[in-house]
């Protein structure tokens, strides 16, 4: 090992930039959350108000609703993506001509800018222009208007996210499945276990670490979904698809309620960390059990 001063010099720029862009904003948001600060209010200067912002948040219906919507959205997309992704991973592991091409095509949505994903789906769903409202009307007689029906807007946002992110689940689970040990599977087959039982008791058991990692990554991303929803529905109709990220943006920018927005940001960060931490504990617990 060489002189560690040189090492610190090499890593210093990285740590410095992350300190400025990652750590300082966190401290800033922490401090501001204890102030009443709205630049458009009668008193535009920050005033210290202790935990008032947090007290108010607990009864803020709009905030609670946005959290509830975010959690509902996350639950829907996570479960659908896991089921579809697992199925697709098994289908992609089969020997089939053009496998590489299918894989590349399936990976495409992952690389597209979320804002462009939103634009894509907007073009599919605009009344009069998009094919989705057209065919829903002419085949099933359903009126499909995103800006009017909350359930349709929510469902479309979920489907868009499934289109966008299922490939990630497919590819991670495919990696997990292709590393499964052969022996237990062979043994179970010799013992005459049904394919379904083998899948539940052996495949899923061995897949658990990869599954949990995938859930972890998708959970983190789903909780912070903003761009594509903003582009597709703008959070509407009303506030029916206004997820937490969008809600914070609205409070902070058009309303310039800085103190309150900061408190909201902190709570959101806290909730994200708690959820990820719970999952992390589950994951490490799993590993210890295996060892």
């Amino acid at each position: 090992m060489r002189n560690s001063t040189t090492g610190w010099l090499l890593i210093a720029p990285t740590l410095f930039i992350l300190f400025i862009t990652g750590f300082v904003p966190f401290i800033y948001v922490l401090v501001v959350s204890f102030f009443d600060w709205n630049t458009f209010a009668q008193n535009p200067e920050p005033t210290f108000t202790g935990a008032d912002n947090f007290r108010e948040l607990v009864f803020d219906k709009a905030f609670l609703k946005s959290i509830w919507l975010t959690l509902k959205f996350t639950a829907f997309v996570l479960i659908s993506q896991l089921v579809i992704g697992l199925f697709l991973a098994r289908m992609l592991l089969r020997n089939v001509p053009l496998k590489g091409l299918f894989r590349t095509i399936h990976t495409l949505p992952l690389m597209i800018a979320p804002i462009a994903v939103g634009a894509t789906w907007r073009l599919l769903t605009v009344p009069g222009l998009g094919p989705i409202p057209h065919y829903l009307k002419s085949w099933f007689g359903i009126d499909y208007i995103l800006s009017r029906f909350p359930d349709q807007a929510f469902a479309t946002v979920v489907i868009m996210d499934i289109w966008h992110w299922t490939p990630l689940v497919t590819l991670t689970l495919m990696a997990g499945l292709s590393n499964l040990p052969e022996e237990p599977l062979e043994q179970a087959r010799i013992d005459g276990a049904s394919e379904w039982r083998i899948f539940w008791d052996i495949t899923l058991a061995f897949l658990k670490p990869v599954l949990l990692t995938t859930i972890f990554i998708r959970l983190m991303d789903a909780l912070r979904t903003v761009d594509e929803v903003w582009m597709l529905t703008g959070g509407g109709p009303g506030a029916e698809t206004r997820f937490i990220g969008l809600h914070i943006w609205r409070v902070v920018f058009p309303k310039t309620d800085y103190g309150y927005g900061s408190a909201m940001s902190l709570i959101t960060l806290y909730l994200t960390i708690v959820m990820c931490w719970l999952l992390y504990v589950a994951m490490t617990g799993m590993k210890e059990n295996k060892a």
Partner: protein
Amino acid sequence: MKRGLFQSTAVTLIFWLCMSALTLLPVWWMFLVSVKSRADLFGKPSFLVDTAKMTWANYAEVLSNPSFQKYMINSLIIATSNAVLVSVLALLAAYAMSRFRLVGRDNIFFWVLTNRMAPPAVFLLPLFLMFTAVKIGDWSLFDSRIGLILLYCVFNLPFAFWLLQGIVDAIPKELDEAAYVDGASTFTVLRTVIFPLARPGLAVTGILTWVFAWNEYLFASTLTSVEARTITTGLAEFVTVTGTNWGQLAAVAMLTLAPAALVLALVQRHIVAGLTFGAVKG
């Protein structure tokens, strides 16, 4: 063991053909809209290109629009500068982590990665206030390209750091030890030993961080107003300002997703590892 009809190669092939169509359909539809004139937009949807009526006018109009040109140039400059900056800094940091005994090594690594995980919406406000506060004469960090180039490090640097860490670790220590024995400085070793061997990994790092920076929207939309707007914010403006011009919107969206689609084949093996912090190798 009998193989049912469902498991036959033909069924699998048909299944994947349908799946691929389903994946490509939204993008294909957008392409169709982008090559239609305004008069042909509405009516019964068709999924085929009408070659007689096909027009590149939307692209021509968008590309000749000065503010859009500026957005595009901004995006190019910001994404490229950020990718280069991040790759260089991360290579140095990864080398330091790999070859020097640093106190609190694991904590540093973990802390660096957490920067990537935080929800960006949470930091919009402090960043906005910080950016508007930094002023030198007439110049402000707010609405500047430099601001975004630095800020995008918050999600790209941890990623590049993690990716290059594995690559530098894989380079045998004996190689740089030999160079040190010959009297080379740390800089020379980095330039003549580490850089050439890490080049393929650096290319992947550069491409993926470039795409992530190019795709970013939330920070760009809140931390710029006129001068430093990027193509993603330009795309969002289309909906709110000229919401009815769907053809041009589609053309801009196609231009936004084009670079990512172009490099897809090059980096697809690394995308999964990239998006899961290497927890899963693709």
